[in-house]
């Protein structure tokens, strides 16, 4: 069924730039992945490979399963009752859904930023260093260093450096989201999963986050869900277009936005539907 997804890549010669970048190889591989919420199937036979060190954008109309797919990667969906999956997902060759897999270790390798900001009712400092705390880091210097680095990377440091001990719930919505980004990168994960990280941000903060994503590219593998086509075009190297739980088309961003194979992709990226 997803012939398009598999053929798209072969159909275009990768540019030099992409060749250089993709030399790092693949980090995540998704094979024939299906998912049901109770009776309703939310993902149909998804096949894709995520390249290491690249920014991969997931686009598609609301409700098409982008968040679902993203949350499967760090097994966040384990919390949901009546969930059924079929298929394989591997990270560095390790089956994510194998029985007995170290879920906590897996999640430590994948930072996640959620669609809605979800800071903890703790101080700003404690929020940022939370991943280190649960890792057992006690050294105050190390924590402070990580806090500063992460907040600077998330473009929040200047706003909160005076009030690190204040409750994080007192921040504005956009600040909270940047705080969550800082938290996600505080423990230096390999993969960063971002679910519409900029939906609550103003243009300046958004561009700062985009810069950040650009800086992190190479060191981190980033998978980002976005509804903003320009953003996807600006920051990602690969783009996947999903529709009604299916991966319609997946390939280099340049191609996806200029001459996609599928009619529906074209309609979507040019804003004719969705």
């Amino acid at each position: 069924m997803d012939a398009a997804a598999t053929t798209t890549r072969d159909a275009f010669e990768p540019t030099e730039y992409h060749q250089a970048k993709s030399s790092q190889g693949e980090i995540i591989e998704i094979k024939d992945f299906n998912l049901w919420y109770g009776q309703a199937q939310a993902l149909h036979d998804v096949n894709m490979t995520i390249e290491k060190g690249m920014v991969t954008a997931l686009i598609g109309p609301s409700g098409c399963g982008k968040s679902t797919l993203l949350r499967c990667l760090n097994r966040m969906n384990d919390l949901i009752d009546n969930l059924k999956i079929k298929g394989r997902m591997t990270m560095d060759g390790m089956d994510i859904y194998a029985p007995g897999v170290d879920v906590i270790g897996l999640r430590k390798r994948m930072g996640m930023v959620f669609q809605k900001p979800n800071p903890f009712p703790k101080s700003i400092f404690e929020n940022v260093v939370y991943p280190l705390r649960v890792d057992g880091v006690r050294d105050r210097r190390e924590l402070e260093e990580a806090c500063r680095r992460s907040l600077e990377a998330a473009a929040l440091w200047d706003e909160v450096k005076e009030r690190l001990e204040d409750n994080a719930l007192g921040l504005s919505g956009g600040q909270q989201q940047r705080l969550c980004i800082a938290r996600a990168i505080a423990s230096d994960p390999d993969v960063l999963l971002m679910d519409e990280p900029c939906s609550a941000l103003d243009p300046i903060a958004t561009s700062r986050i985009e810069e950040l994503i650009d800086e992190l590219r190479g060191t981190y593998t980033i998978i980002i869900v976005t509804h903003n086509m320009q953003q996807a075009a600006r920051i990602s190297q690969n783009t996947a277009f999903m529709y009604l739980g299916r991966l319609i088309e997946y390939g280099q961003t340049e191609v996806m936005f200029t001459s996609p194979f599928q009619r529906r992709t074209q309609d979507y990226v040019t804003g004719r539907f969705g």
Partner: protein
Amino acid sequence: MTVIEPKGPEVPAKRPRRAHAAELSAFGEPFLWAHGGALAIGIVLIIGFLVLVLWNGIATFWPRPVAVVTLEDGSLVAGEPSRTEPFRPGPELLSSLSETQRQTVAAADGWAERRLYRIGNYDLYNEDFRWIADYAVARVDYPPEMVFVERLEWGPFVGMVQALAVGGETRTAASLRPGELQSELAKAQDRWQRIRHIERSLIGAVNHEMERERLAVRRAILDHGAGSPAALAAQAAAERRMKPLEERYQALAAEARAIKDADAAVTITLADVGGRDKTMPLSQVVRIYAANDLSLIEKLGVYVSRWWEFLSEEPREANTEGGVFPAIFGTFAMTLLMVIVVAPFGVITALYLREYAKQGRLVSIVRISVNNLAGVPSIVYGVFGLGFFAYILGGSIDDLFYPERLPSPTFGTGGLLWASLTLALLTVPVVIVATEEALAAVPRSMREGSLACGASKWQTIRNIVLPRAMPGILTGLILAMARGAGEVAPLMLVGVVKLAPELPIDGYFPYVHLERSFMHLGFHIYDVGFQSRNSEAGKPMVFVTTLLLIGLVAAMNATAIVIRNRLKRKFAVGHF
């Protein structure tokens, strides 16, 4: 109702609007009235109750004047006037009345008013209160020389001071210097305190030591058998140590006797309105004041000193007088201990039910059962507490650790610990339900945020879920505390007593005696109000004690609420 048809064929016809104006439910008002009415009734009931308790509780200790009533037949009655009520004299009583009195009653359709006087002097009259019908009264006076005397025994005395004898030298009331009586009284009370201190604390300590020696010997006999060398050695050692204790006891007893002799030389002679006099040691007097001759400041002084006595002293006269300190202490200690037990127990149970157990039929059944437990009559918990905690658990503890004290039980009978455990059992459903609600209300996004950071389930619960649920958990504890502190029925079976000789905490090792029976304000109310010889005298105490119990519960709750609100403020979201 007219529906205007839209013009043009392509516009679909609008659905005609229902004439809803006729429907009752279309208006909020009738229900608004019902809601408001229900609220108003509730508030009126609660406020009425609080005002009743508050007014009676606050007014009880205010010194009242003493009236001297001259009856038609010329006899005198003195007492504090209290309430009045209408009554219907029976034919027998009517026939004993004079002609004018009969006419008065007949003019009021056979009804008459009567007033209750607290006449005191139980030792002289064999009654504390007397009803006097209005028609029998010739005059009421408030002579300034009348005094109201509170005594350690026999209740109050109403009358006049006649004389004060200090070491053989007798002064009549007229020759007493102002303030001399009060200063002598202070000295006498001081002597009384010293005697009590010697008899209870010092001799009590000696007795405690002696009891320890006796138990050590018994223990040795139980462990090694009677007549064995070890037992004999223990016996000899005990006798050796007993000797100085014995001597110390004699010395203390002699000292107490000496003070008592000195005390007996100071006596006060009182006389009632009829002229019958009564002489007693001055130290028997708790408080004496000229009821009709008090300035406002003096009244206030009496009032405050009565409250202080009430809050800090032990009860006397079958609990109808004196203070309730042991009951306050017992209630507080029991409630605190209950919370210490019920909080972790309930929270851990709820955590398991909500966070770890697989949600299914079994968990639902457990949950329903827990909810229904809250409806089991509390006396059933009392029976369970007595049977399981006191007899089975306590009995085993006695067999294992205190065999030398048997057959008198240590833990094998009701006590503070068992009462607290029983109440913890009684209130644990409240805590479980409240905690479950609080846990369920923690947003999923927060758990996900924590898990996504690589936290384990337990780390998430400890660092994120529990702190966030804490206000809700505290609400549950507040409810449990209020329920537990006010519960009486089960306590009567598992350790509350009318009069506890010792507090559960004292200066003797191991300082905290959880096995001791204790006093409780709720039981005190029941006891004073319904179990005492003189329920009329106990009535004011019932109100004051109720006021105190409500106050204690309110204070404990207020503390918890302050903590909760402080926590809540932490979770208040700052933006919208």
